[in-house]
């Protein structure tokens, strides 16, 4: 194992791999990524595989839009020999009442102002997009045709292989135990396989990012919670877009491979690092999906699992350094959508670390935005 590095990235999910790739792509050398299990073993490999630009908060919209622009060319840019399984057949967001329709109106206005091609639909128009959608309890909908799907495993693999070709070193099955700081200068990262001397540490540890912050005495205002999900047997293509509803608490899409992936949230879920599966989730998911998308009820569930959302106070990510400790950077608090924002996470953090002009203003992504302030704009469009 190397005992010296210029940059140590903690976390081998999509964020860590994207940061590594973009740092290396900008010409940085001696980059090491440390992952305690295998790549995508945390939230990335447990996510719903959706790519969405229809957000209610500005930063999420901007990050998502620019990330989609990257994903559209990712297969070529990353020169990947596999298939990232990108599909752009939209996200259909369905609402239950007039109140939700008013939120849709505000959100679509914001999205359109930022160049995202979303539109409001009547429930009849929604049914034209997904003909088996049960619109009995649907009031209205929104649709963005350039939203879609990506395979989290192969997309991360694409970043990993591209980063590796640029000289990045990856240590999997290696856990960070401590980070040594002396007189406000980072000295080294202590791992289960040895110490690495470095002056720059990037915290991309997802569900464990708070614990990494604590190792250097930085309190990151995030917490983790389990969100459950299931997958069905693969079948012939029957659904183009992701169907999602905040009021009905469901997201459900068919992957290009044919399987349906679906999830919902438990509002009573306690904070913590547990990722176990429950029969309560299975019962509630089966009922919700069978009522909203009746033919999907005919499919067999083959597997269920849980994964961690790393929640920030405003449900927008923290992509930031900190004045309290130069050389310490973080990409965390994605609140359930770190996978789809990864290209911009990688670009922005690499620009920040290397002192380049940022692609977009980052004040609203900084750790310091929470210092003694009330959260003003909170993202509410989260399942």
């Amino acid at each position, binding site marked *: 194992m190397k005992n010296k590095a210029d940059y140590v990235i903690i976390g081998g999910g999509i964020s860590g791999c994207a940061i590594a790739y973009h740092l290396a792509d900008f010409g940085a050398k001696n980059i090491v990524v440390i992952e305690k299990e295998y790549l995508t073993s945390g939230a990335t490999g447990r996510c719903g595989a959706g790519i969405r630009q229809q957000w209610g908060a500005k930063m999420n919209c901007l990050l998502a839009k620019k990330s989609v622009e990257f994903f559209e060319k990712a297969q070529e840019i990353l020169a990947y020999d596999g298939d990232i399984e990108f599909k752009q057949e939209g996200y259909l967001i369905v609402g239950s009442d007039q109140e939700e329709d008013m939120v849709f109106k505000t959100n679509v206005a914001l999205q359109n102002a930022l160049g995202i091609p979303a539109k409001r639909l009547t429930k009849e128009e929604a049914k034209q997009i997904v003909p088996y959608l049960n619109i009995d309890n649907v009031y209205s909908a929104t649709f963005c045709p350039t939203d879609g799907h990506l395979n989290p495993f192969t997309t991360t693999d694409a970043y990993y292989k591209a980063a590796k070709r640029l000289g990045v070193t990856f240590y999997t099955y290696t856990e960070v135990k401590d980070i040594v700081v002396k007189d406000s200068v980072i000295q080294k990262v202590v791992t289960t396989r040895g110490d690495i001397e470095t002056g720059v540490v990037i915290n991309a540890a997802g569900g464990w990012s708070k614990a990494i912050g604590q190792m250097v005495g930085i309190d990151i205002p995030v917490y983790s919670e389990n969100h459950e999900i299931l997958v069905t047997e*693969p079948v012939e293509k029957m659904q183009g877009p992701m169907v999602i509803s905040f009021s009905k608490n469901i997201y459900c899409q068919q992957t290009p491979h044919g399987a349906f992936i679906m999830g919902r949230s438990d509002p009573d879920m306690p904070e913590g690092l547990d990722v176990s599966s429950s029969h309560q989730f299975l019962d509630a998911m089966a009922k919700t999906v069978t009522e909203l998308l009746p033919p999907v009820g005919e499919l067999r569930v083959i597997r269920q699992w849980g994964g961690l959302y790393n929640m920030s106070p405003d449900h927008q990510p923290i992509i930031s350094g900190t004045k309290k400790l130069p050389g310490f950077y973080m990409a965390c608090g994605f609140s359930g959508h770190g996978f789809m924002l990864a290209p911009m996470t990688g670009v922005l953090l690499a620009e920040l670390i290397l002192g380049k002009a940022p692609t977009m203003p980052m004040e609203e992504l900084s750790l310091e935005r929470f210092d003694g302030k009330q959260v003003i704009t909170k993202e509410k469009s989260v399942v």
Partner: protein
Amino acid sequence: MDPKHVIICRCSDVTLADLIALFEQGYQTFEELKRIKRVGMGPCQANTCGKMVQWEISKYFNQPLEEVPFHNMRPLTMGIKLKEIMEAKNREE
């Protein structure tokens, strides 16, 4: 026999040649193989191929079979229709 013609995972159509190609690229554990090639992730949930994958990892990396971790098994143990789960729950209530 040509590894291209040896089917390991029937659900996801993965051959022995596919596995060897992944081994050569450095993917070494069942969990990694699953995620890149979907081996063991189909309707049978590795009930058919699981032991074979474990055996091939053991052979290729010269690792005693009992030291090759089996994949992380998750519920359900068999495929059940979503509608049947809903109906069973409705009968309970």
